[in-house]
């Protein structure tokens, strides 16, 4: 079965609320059928606006959104057949769990026994069988969350939107819910558009992630690519931890460039620099820089330990390296032969491949 790779399509969508500022700028985004795509970004980056346009609660100022090749800008929300899980669940407080789940079916004039069957199935999917007669207020946050998910899925929508659905849960519950939602998605193969500002959530759940900033998609790729190969300094900064050096390119070849820093020079991977003299921000993941590297690495520097923070499974070391006093290293707890003391000078090395020369900040 070939899947429609343009199941949901944002085509040159602009959105402005006041006619002065564009909240979403020239958005082009294709979502394929059955995909779990996450819109990730800081608050105010336009991700929720995109979701609301897809759900039909906002209209695009310009451009068009297609669902299964049909333009939907002029279709009201209730005719789009898109399920939605809201930030605060939006369960109807005056209805029981059963009535909440039956609502989308009743408005579709489904037969009573059919409703019972579907509600049953949806509740067992979120392992809440037997909770039919409870009121939402009698449920815990996690249970309410699951009811909201079940309600969004019970009428077999083609697309389900989730607007920061786990934001109100505590950390442990959030993690288990992440897996649960992921498994539900895998089992029923519905297309999910998920909005969050939590990168951990995005990385663990999604097939693809669209990183939003300033109304634009900064990068759209799979979680691993996003983490390991950020295309610009915003993405590098936003996803995971990141050590940066600001400098200027002094020499460039196909896959390596020389960047002159304030005090020193490093080799880097030219991602978004093209010629000599370009300003750049070099980004290195903390776990890619090693202390006293045994293998040969093409960047070798010496730094002074400024701070040592114990984290249980690993230790964070803050170095003063090449003028950057915020250079972080992650040292796994197994390597306890290292002499990590304040003020000590240590050798640090990394491959130029992992030092990505991105656009200047």
């Amino acid at each position, binding site marked *: 079965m070939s899947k429609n790779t343009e199941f949901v399509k944002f085509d040159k969508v602009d959105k402005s609320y006041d006619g002065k500022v564009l909240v979403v700028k020239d958005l082009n985004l294709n979502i394929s059928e059955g995909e779990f795509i996450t819109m990730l970004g800081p608050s105010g980056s336009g991700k929720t606006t995109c979701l609301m346009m897809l759900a039909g609660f906002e209209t695009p100022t310009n451009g068009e959104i297609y669902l299964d090749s049909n333009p939907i800008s002029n279709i009201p*929300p*209730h*005719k789009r057949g898109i*399920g939605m899980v*809201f930030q605060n669940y939006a369960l109807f407080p005056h209805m029981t769990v059963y009535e909440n789940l039956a609502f*989308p079916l009743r408005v579709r004039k489904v037969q009573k026994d059919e409703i019972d069957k579907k509600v049953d199935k949806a509740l067992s999917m979120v392992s809440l069988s037997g909770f039919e007669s409870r009121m939402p207020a009698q449920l815990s946050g996690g249970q309410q969350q699951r009811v909201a998910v079940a309600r969004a899925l019970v009428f077999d929508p083609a697309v389900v939107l989730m607007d920061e659905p786990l934001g109100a849960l505590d950390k442990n519950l959030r993690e288990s819910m992440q897996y649960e939602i992921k498994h539900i998605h895998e089992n029923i193969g519905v297309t999910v558009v998920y909005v969050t500002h939590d990168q951990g959530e995005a990385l663990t759940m999604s097939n693809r992630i669209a990183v939003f900033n300033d109304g634009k998609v900064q990068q759209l790729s799979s979680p691993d690519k996003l983490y390991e190969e950020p295309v610009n300094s915003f993405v590098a900064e936003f996803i995971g931890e990141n050590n940066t050096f600001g400098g200027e390119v002094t020499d460039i070849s196909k896959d390596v460039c020389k960047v002159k820093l304030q005090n020193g020079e490093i080799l880097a991977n030219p991602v978004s620099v093209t010629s000599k003299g370009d300003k750049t921000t070099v980004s290195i993941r903390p776990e890619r820089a090693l202390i006293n590297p045994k293998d040969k690495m093409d960047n070798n520097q010496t730094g002074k330990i400024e701070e040592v923070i114990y984290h249980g499974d690993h230790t964070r070391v803050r170095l003063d390296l090449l003028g950057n006093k915020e250079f972080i290293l992650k040292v796994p707890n197994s390597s306890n032969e290292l002499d990590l003391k304040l003020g000590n000078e240590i050798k640090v090395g990394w491959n130029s491949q992992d030092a990505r020369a991105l656009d200047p900040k």
Partner: protein
Amino acid sequence: MSSETKQILTTDGIPLEISLKKAERKNKIKAFLLVAPLLLFLIITYIFPIGEMFTRSIDDKMITNMLPKTFKSMETWDGKELPSEEVFASFLSDFKILVEKKEHGKLAQRLNKEKNGFNTITKKLFRQVKRNKIDETQSIKEQIMKVHKRWRNVEYWQAIKRTAPPYTSAKYLKAMDMYLNEDNKITQVSEDRRIHRILWLRTVEVAFFVTVFCFLMGYPIAHLLATLPMKYSNLLMICVLLPFWTSLLVRTASWMILLQQQGVVNDFFVMIGIVADDNRPEMMYNKVGTYVAMTQILLPFMVLPLYSVMKTISPSLMRAGKSLGGTPFVAFWKVYFPLTIPGIGAGCLLVFILAIGYYITPALVGGASGTLISNQIAYHMKTTLDWSFASAMGLMLLGGVLVIYWLYNKLVGVDNIKLG
């Protein structure tokens, strides 16, 4: 655990419960002292007057004290034929004391209320007593019966006997256009004299329709207030509250200016040609005026509870309703509306209760067909000075309100009420 019933002791060996009570007693006393002035104020200004009103409304001691001997001797009278000589004698002796105290007029008035015709015959008897025409050595019964033929009529003596109990429900019956007849049966007054029942019905009707109008107008306003962005909703809120800050009298007077036959509204109707100049509709001094003015005046009492409830309803609920496939109407009717019921209940209860006792507005714009029971109460307070009747009607109004409250509690539940 060995036993659950074992008393738990504090570290010092005092039973925990006692220790807890001790610790909380101080707070309780403090809390009580804080509310004590208010409690006292309420007792003095509310509970006490209501009690006073109640006793006044059923009090009939005056005549009991005027004719003590008569009533005593009447105890053995079966009330079927004319009473015995003894009754006549004690009546005369009571009457003489009243004449000395110059209170015979009051007696005549009271008895005349019980049965028409007492005024004349009491006056006649008074003249006889004054001239010492009655010879106490002979049969008093015969002599009194000679004063006027009505003294020979057993119905008049029955009427006197009916006034014997120190308490009476007559005022309450009167407010319902009923009275106790000669056989102590509750009877309706003749049809042309039934005015109170019309007033009660009209009061309930006006209160009901004012509540309905307030609801129909207040619901959209409250919804708009709750959903508009702050800067507009504040302005709208001021528009809603502005009448609140204007004197009730001024507002009623301005309605009079607007609604009278040569008023602004009529002028406008004539100007746009809806009505002819010589056939201006009467919009005041009737029910229309009462409805219009009361609805406007009571509208904030509907809007505010509704607003406070609607403010708490998350807009995402309506969105959820729509995204799940409900048309805007279904989403409103199945999701939004049920959630506003506590506000509707509070607003309707408030408006209805206020409307049922409304006074100034119907008095000024109501005219003859638009006056309500409260105007009747005021009339008896100020004009006829029949305070006990006014008290009785006031208490009936209070009772009605309590019944409505009780009904509301049964139907919606008072715990659901939300006043703000």
